[in-house]
């Protein structure tokens, strides 16, 4: 009694604060490691002057979209076949705006595809991801006069569509 060291709440609190601070500083070190690749890329770009829109043009998909942009007029509507999850379709929609963008699944059957092309009066079809053979059959000349192959870009295969010629006669 009387010999036991007295508890010092302030000291205990300081100890906890010190532990937290040390852990946090270690975490800051980890954060620097986390952002290091981005920081390195940033410094490289500052040194080379490769910044802004030039960065986007390094990506093949964006290069392809730049080619497509020159072909499709701003007021036109196009159907883009892709999976939303791939993260390409939203880039196409953003970069090709104000062109109207209709997204359809790549495994779409011919009838709903043609129906949508007619309803939306779409003048272009871009296929980033493969179509099932049944639908692809109609796109191969001279199987259907409504589709005209235009180009193979890095954004996908581009067709010109004449919706007025899609008057039926196709079956799933």
């Amino acid at each position, binding site marked *: 009694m009387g010999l036991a060291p007295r508890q010092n709440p*302030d000291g205990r*609190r300081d100890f*906890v*604060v010190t532990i*937290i601070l040390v*852990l*946090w500083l270690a*975490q*800051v070190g*980890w*954060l620097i490691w*986390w*952002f290091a690749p*981005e*920081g390195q890329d*940033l410094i490289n*770009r*500052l040194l080379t002057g490769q*910044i*802004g*829109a030039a*960065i*986007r043009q390094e990506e093949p998909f964006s290069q392809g979209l730049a080619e497509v942009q020159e072909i499709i007029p701003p007021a036109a509507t196009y159907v883009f076949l892709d999976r939303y999850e791939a*993260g390409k379709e*939203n*880039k196409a*929609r*953003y970069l090709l*705006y*104000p062109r*109207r*963008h209709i997204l359809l699944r790549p495994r779409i059957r011919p009838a709903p595809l043609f129906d949508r092309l007619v309803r939306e009066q779409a003048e272009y079809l871009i296929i980033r991801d493969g179509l099932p053979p049944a639908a692809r059959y109609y796109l191969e000349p001279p199987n259907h006069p409504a589709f005209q192959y235009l180009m193979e870009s890095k954004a996908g295969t581009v067709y010109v569509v004449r919706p007025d010629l899609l008057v039926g006669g196709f079956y799933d």
Partner: protein
Amino acid sequence: MIEGLLTGFWLALGLASIELVGYGLLIVCLPRTSGFTALERFALGFGLGALVLTLWMLVLTFLNIDFSLPWVLGPWLIILCPWWALTSRRRLWQNDLCQLWSAARKIVTLGYGCGWTWRERAWLILLLLAFAFALLRATLYPLWAWDAITTWGLKAKAFYLSRAIDLSRFEAHNYYPNLVPLLMTYIYLWLGGVVDHLVKAIFPLWGGCLVLMFYSFLRRLPVKRPGAWLGAAFLVLNGPTLITHCFIAYADLALTYYTLVSAGLLFLWLRDQAPAGSLILVGVYGGGMLWSKYEGGSLVMINFLAAALTLLWLWPPGRGRKFASLAGIGFLTLLFYFPWRYFCLTHQMTIGADHVGGFFPAQFWHAIIYLLQALVWPPYFGLFWPVVILAGVWWGWEALYSPGLFLVLVTLGNLAAIILAYAVVPASVAEFPFYMRATVDRLLLHFVPVSGLLLAAPWAARNVGRENMVNLSWGCSPGKFRKDNKLFCHSRR
């Protein structure tokens, strides 16, 4: 080279004009003796400027007037210029300029010659490095993050090209509020085109204002300057989430900023420490929450509900007047919701169908487990949540008998709201985990700074303990409160 400099000049002018409008309105509308510091007025100004300019752009769309700089900015300059010229106001903003210049000089020189400790300098250097990185990362790279190009950036481009809020050519959560896209459109007007890398300069600036407000709130609570700098560094440099949102064009940073200002001022008001005019700002910045993101509605509701419950529990003197003020400010906030709601109604837009399905119990339990994991998962917020929880536990009993209860309720309320949001979202079994993984950090971010104010409690108590001060509202015991019948005791600085 000259073209690049000129573009930078227009960008700087565009950003400065947002600040000028907001700051000018604060100078004109707040009482001259409001007690806000120059730094606070600066940090508040950017948010207010962004809010009024973008709401005005919505009004211009109603009036069928195309967006152009003279129409968007002109009326505000015409309204504000005569006020600035008035002698009393002129003295105020001249004083503020001097103070801001002095603060900027201290920050740039890291407080040399001003008695700053090496620790303060270290925290400041960390903050400056973080924001320098965010600024460069924002302005050198084009829009790339998912929602930035899918929703916010796309809308900004569409609004700029059509010079109006035209949602006819795409479907990108069209019912979402448009503060961020319209602000980007406003900068495009200054830049003269869709320069989607420079426009992102908005975000680090906004992040900077957020940190300044957090620092100011800590100083008012009262945390000493070194502690407040450390607190600000702790907020920013805990996990990559906040820094990342300072360079991607998402609306979450804006919502976080408005939430901090609205809830922080409400908290000061509950402590009877709010500068004059704060309560109006609570309403206006609550409006900013509603106008920046769909989730803003639930955050606003939680703020007001937490404040009302705190008043009910503490039952302070003059409670009738306080409840009436709270209701009035709630109504003011609601007014900000109507213009966009009216726009949605007149354009036959369905609101929230993609976020609210039925109640799915499996998702509810899954969400609880995932949220608990997210709170301690370092790649989201580092040590932030564990330390906040520790601070809450440390301070637990006292918090129940002080206005700090408000912060606890806001934190718990928002956590509950996230779980509920996940429980009602219409998602397939396969999609649901991905949905949570993609959104949980953002949903937590919205109230991270407000919950961060909880850290000030033990901190301030620690300072007080060292100075042998008693009866701080943060530190005094429930018994003391009851005995003195002084539930809302003021802190002594």
